[in-house]
């Protein structure tokens, strides 16, 4: 009775490429419910493969470096960083904006593509939602570390305290607390809500008692009832609808941290849309940097097909063009404003002491991504991985350019100064990458990394999976 059902349920597949040569399959031919269950649900139940251990150990060592950097920071306070006056916002804020941006692709894929009925989110939404959570963790830490007295971070929350003062709700920095906090909570709920039925699948497939108990605990007694599925689907759709404006608001609020200030190079109305596009751009790049190796190591090419990579590359190309337009408008508006400080900021940004950083940014974010026009590169995982690495680096550099070059020469030349990062700055940056990757590796190890129930839906409706 319990023998796995091996008969292929799917038969009529359309050809695997469209007339224009794009891959069309979301699922390789011949998949059954059982093959999908086995591929995804058995990964957390079996021993981890060798490459997982190598990756996890490297990530964990980086995390330990983060621990050292943070401990020394708490001991000595922010003076160990390269920040000064006028460059009071250094790496911590650059890292914060970078990580929040990376988080955005997860919500874009899981919420916006769900509302738009795009089936090509199925195999990657779980990954990228996890990526969102972990990136928001890294992001949230950065302003806290920058506080100087991080142990009183709770002063940011409105509560009736003995000092009888309240947060100043007109400040974008307070908006940020609410925006990032809400974003983390909603991402967590959305991720867990989608995960519960899959945890039930893992529970029902587990053989060892401790595994069965662990997954049963987190599956909350899910029993696949039609009435439960109905509420689950509605809750999921409503959360997607709520997360969609939220994701646009979060990076807009982050950009207000800059654009509400009167610093030349920050005080600009282009910031919210251009920050959101940049966020999705870097988030898709980070998703590709994770999905491509994981797909290879766990042999998931039949579930995460080339069509996913192709579509993600297309999104990067579009958002990359919006970002490039943002750079152009920034320069144009600086010139058009006729404002001496704005014009000087732009000239200094491109040809001043940090000019080489600006041109590296143009290389990484504008020039290299043009390779994505080629369908051959979009379908080649190795080249796509390299392009995505350039974009990730480029988006970090973009935030460096915005934060540092604007601050270091603002109004009176007597106030000008250079910012040089110290080793503690670098250790915090790469250490936070360690935190992100450690969490990501643990996620891959213990949680079904692709939505099993949604993939089963694709098996049941092959025509949905294979049309453009």
């Amino acid at each position: 009775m319990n023998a796995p059902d091996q008969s292929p349920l799917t038969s009529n597949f359309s050809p695997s490429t469209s007339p224009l040569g794009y891959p069309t399959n979301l699922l390789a031919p011949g998949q059954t419910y059982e093959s999908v269950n086995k591929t995804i649900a058995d990964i957390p139940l079996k021993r981890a493969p060798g490459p997982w251990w190598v990756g996890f150990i490297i990530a964990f060592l980086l995390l330990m470096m983060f621990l050292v950097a943070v401990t020394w920071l708490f001991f000595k306070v922010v003076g160990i960083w390269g920040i000064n006056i006028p460059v009071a916002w250094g790496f911590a804020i650059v890292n914060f904006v970078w990580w929040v941006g990376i988080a955005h692709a997860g919500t874009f894929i899981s919420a916006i593509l769900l509302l738009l009925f795009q089936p090509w989110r199925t195999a990657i939404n779980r990954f990228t939602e996890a990526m969102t959570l972990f990136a928001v963790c890294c992001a949230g830490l950065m302003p806290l570390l920058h506080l100087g007295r991080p142990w009183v971070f709770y002063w940011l929350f409105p509560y009736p305290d003995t000092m009888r003062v309240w947060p100043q709700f007109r400040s974008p920095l307070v908006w940020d607390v609410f925006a990032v906090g809400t974003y983390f909570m909603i991402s967590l709920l959305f991720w867990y809500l989608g995960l519960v039925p899959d945890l039930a699948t893992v529970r029902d497939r587990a053989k060892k008692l401790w595994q069965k108990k662990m997954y049963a605990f987190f599956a909350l007694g899910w029993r696949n009832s039609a009435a439960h599925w109905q509420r689950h689907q509605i809750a999921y759709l409503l959360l997607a609808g709520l997360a969609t404006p939220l994701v646009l608001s979060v990076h807009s609020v982050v950009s207000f941290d800059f654009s509400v200030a009167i610093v030349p190079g920050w005080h600009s109305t282009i910031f919210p849309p251009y920050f959101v596009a940049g966020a999705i751009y870097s988030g898709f790049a980070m998703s590709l940097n994770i999905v491509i190796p994981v797909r290879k190591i766990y042999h998931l090419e039949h579930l995460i097909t080339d069509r996913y990579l192709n579509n993600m590359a297309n999104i990067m190309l579009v958002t990359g063009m919006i970002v490039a337009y943002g750079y152009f408008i920034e320069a144009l508006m600086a010139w058009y404003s006729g404002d001496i400080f704005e014009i000087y900021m732009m000239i200094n940004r491109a040809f001043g002491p940090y000019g080489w950083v600006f041109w590296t940014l143009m290389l990484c974010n504008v020039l290299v991504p043009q390779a994505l026009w080629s369908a051959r590169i979009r379908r080649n995982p190795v080249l796509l991985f390299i392009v995505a690495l350039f974009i990730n680096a480029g988006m970090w550099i973009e935030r460096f350019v915005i934060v540092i070059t604007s601050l270091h020469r603002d109004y009176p030349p007597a106030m000008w100064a250079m910012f040089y990062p110290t080793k503690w700055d670098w250790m915090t940056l790469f250490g936070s990458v360690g935190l992100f990757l450690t969490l990501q590796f643990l996620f891959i190890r213990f949680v079904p990394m692709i939505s099993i129930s949604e993939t089963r839906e694709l098996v049941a409706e092959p025509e949905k999976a294979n049309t453009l």
Partner: protein
Amino acid sequence: MSETYGLLAEFSTPEALMHAAEEAYAAGFRRMDGYAPFPVERLPEALGKKNRLPLLVLIGGILGGGGAYFMEWYANAISYPINIGGRPINSWPSFIPITFELTVLCAGLTAFFASFALNGLPRPHHPLFSIPEFDRASQDRFFLCIETKDPKFHPEATRAFLQRLNPISIMEVPE
């Protein structure tokens, strides 16, 4: 009859389950539920299931947004008024971002917790879990369970009814 929870029929495709659900509803059964490894479209409606989750989420969102604006207004205009750049004390445009964020947060929390609460979850044990075959409800099989609490339930007649739907198997679920 108190020691039996219901009769469980097993099917191999979502279409068969859908057909069985329609037949059972037409035959007058109401205390029943379908079980499938993914949400089968229109199955809950065929079984006569309704839900009021969207209304709760709307209420959650309104309370969140209203509460947020009230909090900001009370804190910055009544309890501890501060003049920031000569702006009005109740400067509503600057209060909008947090009002929006907390609307989303409260609506989202309501959607999450209310969906589980209305489902009666978490519930670690359920009579159906004592059926070994039921493990496949989360994997590749489709089930229809007619409960003994249904007024139309009759041990033999209901079994004969389910048999006509051509299931793979019929199992009795102990309480």
